[in-house]
């Protein structure tokens, strides 16, 4: 039963070039930039730190649980309950479907096929991420790391594009947050071992509020 842990598979899955649609999502950064809440690297760091401890932890928990093989229906329902914004639920399912496409090409696996068939409109992205990690031979903590990293990697890249922020400073923000990502991933993986009811549900009011505003903009660069 023990799956081989392959560190390089984790790099493939976590790579920003993995074609799963993430590049078009800012994780709320586009709205925060417009509202003046992100103006520089320090704001970006605070924004990313907040994301990590809220939606990042929640996503990491779901991903870890899916990687452990917990019931994906229950996990998807848990993800719905943790995502009050319909714009973010839609984005999560769309990204889930996009990730599923890439994951099935990368790591063909009957469990992924079954998950895709069960959720033709897409399961929540963290659930698919965990399943993809599982198909790649990775474990729950790997999946949680990947989710945590995505939580901040997306906004950092988006802010580089939106503000012309020095990419070295943006990368330094990510590097400074690395220990927090580790901590969040560890917490998420530990929680996942406790079952669906033990999963974190940390939320961020402003992300929910601005997601709906952003979705209604007539003109925007990022999908969310």
């Amino acid at each position, binding site marked *: 039963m023990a799956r081989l842990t392959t560190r390089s598979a984790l790099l493939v899955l976590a790579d920003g070039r993995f074609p799963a649609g993430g*590049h078009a999502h800012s994780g709320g950064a586009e709205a925060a930039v417009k509202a003046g809440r992100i103006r520089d690297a320090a704001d970006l760091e605070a924004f990313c730190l907040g994301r990590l401890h809220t939606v990042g932890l929640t996503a990491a928990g779901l991903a870890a649980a899916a990687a452990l093989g917990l019931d994906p229906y229950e996990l998807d329902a848990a993800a719905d309950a943790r995502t009050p914004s319909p714009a973010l639920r839609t984005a999560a399912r769309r990204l889930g479907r996009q990730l599923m496409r890439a994951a099935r090409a990368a790591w063909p696996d009957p469990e992924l096929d079954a998950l895709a068939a069960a959720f033709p409109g897409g399961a929540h992205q963290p659930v698919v991420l965990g399943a993809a990690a599982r198909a790649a031979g990775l474990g729950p903590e790997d999946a949680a790391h990947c989710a945590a990293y995505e939580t901040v990697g997306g906004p950092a890249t988006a802010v580089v*594009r939106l503000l012309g922020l020095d990419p070295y400073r943006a990368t330094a923000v990510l590097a400074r947050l690395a220990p927090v990502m580790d901590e969040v991933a560890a917490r998420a993986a530990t929680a996942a071992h406790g079952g669906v009811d033990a999963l974190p549900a940390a939320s961020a009011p402003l992300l929910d509020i601005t997601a709906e505003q952003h979705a209604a903009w007539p003109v*925007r660069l990022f*999908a969310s």
Partner: protein
Amino acid sequence: MHLDHGHSHHGAVSADAHRPDGTRRALRIGLGGPVGSGKTATVAALCRQLRDTLSLAVVTNDIYTREDAEFLLREAVLPPERIRAVETGACPHTAIRDDISANLEAVEELEDAVGPLDLILVESGGDNLTATFSKGLVDAQVFVIDVAGGDDIPRKGGPGVTTADLLVVNKTDLAPHVGSDLGRMARDAAEQRGELPVAFTSLRSAEGVGPVAEWVRERLAAWTAAPAPTA
């Protein structure tokens, strides 16, 4: 896992020529090219030329979401449900080449929603000369440049000019005004492209897009004449 392990093709392979029900999917043609060369105008003109005889739909990839989609809607070239805009996160070339997943979602959703379709036009956001479509997304691609952008563009080459299945040199009516030499552009293009076709267009008249429309019909005929799909 309490999942049905039934096999599904849904969204599995991007270049698969079949829809999940085993029928042949629509032909997908990409239109790329630099900003302002007339991609959206070409798409609009193609829709007007082809919509009476073909079932077609359009996916746009704007730098700013919806701008091109809204132009097409305003011009009423197609019913709104046949036009989808894909957000590109400020990187339109990424969405058509490196990570095509959002565009694949869009074309498949269009086929599910309004299908069956004969043809889907995928318009790239205005980008640079290096932006080309992934073969995982489109079956053929058109690269649109214009005479006002300089008559040395064909000579400069680049992946779009050299490898596109059709090179369109647009706004030929402007050539005398901007001092572009159409003959030189044709010679340079032929040198860069070998046997690959080049079309010179002016969209000032409704028939101006004719050569492109003709090429599209040929591609479509070849697509449908290909061996019948086996599910």
